[in-house]
């Protein structure tokens, strides 16, 4: 599926990386001693944080309740389109 704007493209990248961290999280719940998976989890966690920071600086909070930063001089959380509208 072609992505036509940079905001969507970055979001797509976040979805991909977060899918990996989610999968590793579920896997580690039942394989808590797997060192390789632990290492991968931390590595992907760092990449995910970096991508989310990048996204929020440009497009506003991705997470609510103080977990995402708001840039600019208006509250972007309530301005940006919702997932089902994108």
């Amino acid at each position, binding site marked *: *599926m072609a992505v036509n704007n940079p905001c969507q493209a970055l*979001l*797509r990248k*976040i*979805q991909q990386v*977060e*899918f990996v961290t*989610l*999968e590793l*999280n*579920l*896997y580690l*719940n*039942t*394989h*808590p001693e797997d060192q390789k998976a632990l290492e991968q989890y931390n590595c992907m966690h760092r990449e995910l944080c970096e991508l989310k920071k990048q996204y929020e600086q440009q497009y506003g*909070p*991705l*997470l*609510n*309740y103080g*977990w995402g930063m708001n840039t600019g001089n208006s509250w972007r*959380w309530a301005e*940006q389109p*919702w*997932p*089902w509208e994108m």
Partner: protein
Amino acid sequence: MWIYEKKLQYPVNVSGKNVQLAKWIITQYGGPDGELAASLRYLNQRYAMPTERAKAVLNDIGTEELAHLEIVGTLVYKLTKDASVAELKAAGLGGHYADHDRALFYVDAVGNPWTAAYIQAKGDPIADLTENMAAEQKARATYNWLINLSDDPQVTDVLRFLREREVVHFQRFGETLNYMQEYLNEKKYY
């Protein structure tokens, strides 16, 4: 507590309006084997689980099911948002329109409202984990039937993603059940 992330777990695109397909897909929103039932079942069973692992598995899969609920809701919303009353009527959604207009509601493919009778919490971890494994298989089968019904390749792509997740959840619940059986056996002998 939960923090909302303003994005879908998986991108949802549709080729266009498709009221008939939405009427079938909504069963994964509010039907017996749908995402609402899955999420509420797992999140509620957490409290009675005796091992830390089982609590983590139920918590995290229950949370992922909420993300799937949002994906299914998005599919239905996008497939119906521009539908005319005549189109809703033709697809058998005249009754839905009378009660809800184009708003989403927790119903199955023939309009029955969601009920807590779809789910159970027995308090017995073996019984509950076994129920969850069956629930994942029923959800997988439902996605299979929906894929067979779908005439929109972009919708089919999303349904395939969701079907695959049920397979992974089944696997994780199976591992949790094995570990639980070992744990309960050990407890019996020491």
